[in-house]
């Protein structure tokens, strides 16, 4: 439970008064990342449901998008912006890492975030009624699972930093437990859930390999960026997959 609360504290703005006592507690809390993602998705789905009778699908979709950003404190979007600035700059490996650590934003970060937000809005808007709960939960769970896979499966770019604090204590057991949780969270999505799991795996592997080539490994910014990309990909892929492979459980 303590471990879950640590994960919730890190991945959301929930005011949880727990402090990690041992260094490796942070890494071990990664096993709960998909559960926290599913919980965040459920919160968004609940608000979406509350708003259904009183407002339009466009406004509900913007509210869901904003809620995802607010509930996470913009953590992953911030990582995405830093990662775009660093990865796509014409610079050496060291300089790329410096750019990522710089708190100011450049054109690539800006454009990357703007396009991601537009994609997410359009994708959330396109989630059909009745399937939105399953969709939001799948988005939240799989995107946070991809962070665990990225952390465990790829080397760290730097020996220090928050990303490394997680990396040092997270291993195969964390990934295994996180995978079981994400499969449970994807179960309501049916066969389409299995396909998006494969998509999330492939995207994370591609991004991990690309970043490893450019900066020698991953860091916290990359984990956040991967989570954003996977979240959007899940939202885009689910509706056509449901049409193809059968609808999810309807709530």
């Amino acid at each position, binding site marked *: 439970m303590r471990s879950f609360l640590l994960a919730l504290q890190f991945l959301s703005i929930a005011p949880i008064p727990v402090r990690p006592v041992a260094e490796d507690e942070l890494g071990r809390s990664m096993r709960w990342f998909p559960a926290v993602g599913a919980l965040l998705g459920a919160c968004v789905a609940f608000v979406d449901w509350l708003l259904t009778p009183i407002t339009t699908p466009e406004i509900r979709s913007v509210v869901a998008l904003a809620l995802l950003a607010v509930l996470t404190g913009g953590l992953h979007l911030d990582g995405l912006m830093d990662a775009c600035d660093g990865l*796509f*700059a014409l610079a050496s490996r060291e300089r790329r890492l410096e*750019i990522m650590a*710089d708190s*100011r*934003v*450049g*054109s*690539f970060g*800006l*454009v*990357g975030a*703007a*396009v991601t937000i*537009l*994609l997410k*809005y*359009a*994708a959330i*808007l*396109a989630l059909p009624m009745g399937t939105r709960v399953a969709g939001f939960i799948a988005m939240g769970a799989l995107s946070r699972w991809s962070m665990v896979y990225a952390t465990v499966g790829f080397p760290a770019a730097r020996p220090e930093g928050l990303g490394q604090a997680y990396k040092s204590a997270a291993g195969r057991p964390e990934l295994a437990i996180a995978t079981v949780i994400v499969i449970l969270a994807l179960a309501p999505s049916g066969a389409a859930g299995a396909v998006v799991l494969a998509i999330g795996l492939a995207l994370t592997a591609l991004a991990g390999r690309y970043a490893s080539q450019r900066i020698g490994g991953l860091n916290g910014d990359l984990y956040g960026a991967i989570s954003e990309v996977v979240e959007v990909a899940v939202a*885009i892929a689910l*509706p*056509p997959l449901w*049409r193809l492979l059968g609808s999810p459980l309807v709530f």
Partner: protein
Amino acid sequence: MLRLTGFFVALQILTRLPSPFRRNAQSPEVGSAAWWFPAVGGLLGVLLVGFDALARPWLDSGVVAALILALMVAVTGAFHLDGLVDSVDGLTAGPGTTARLAAMRQAVASPLGALAACILLLADFVAIAALPHPVRPAALLCMPLCGRTAVLAAYRLYPYGRPEATLSAHLKQGATTPAAILGVGFAAAVCFAVGGVGGLALLGLAFALMHGIATVALRRIPGLTGDLHGAICELSQLAVLFAAPLALRG
């Protein structure tokens, strides 16, 4: 560089698509690839039309529009959008030419540059999503084609603003009158083939935007820079998207 090598050099400059060989971007010979810019624009257009046709049966129209936008950003490496941000940063800086040119070089986006990029992306998104079905292929083909043709014409028509031998300085050298006529002629032929007189009107609109931006910029800096050419590309593309439903209707 009339042979096909010029096309691949232009491809290397304007996109992140794989090119069979690489040229040093600082080498003066890359300038002679300028007249291939419209051809690269046409290729990007074909890519967008193909993607649109594949994605539309499966995905919601808003998602397709956002994906087309993402595809353009990914394929071009946000090259021209970066130019727009830097142009706004530079033109709104000052006082004095030196300060403006220095501000364009800053890697960090200013609030106004950031604002410009956000509004442009939102406008692109809305315009692509609103393209009616019958005119979509022609509009998506003309959009990148007209944008890059306007860039070629701008290199031919306006002075270059920096003293150093940058990539843009080489392109300015390479954009000779015959090169510009060839490139613009190619673009006009394609626009006419897919959109008739309306297609030509879209190309004319892109040139009007180019001239407007150049006029504004030349009041503040002595010549255009690579960033301004990026801004010309982005804004003329947006104008083409806005006008396409009207121009291509017949």
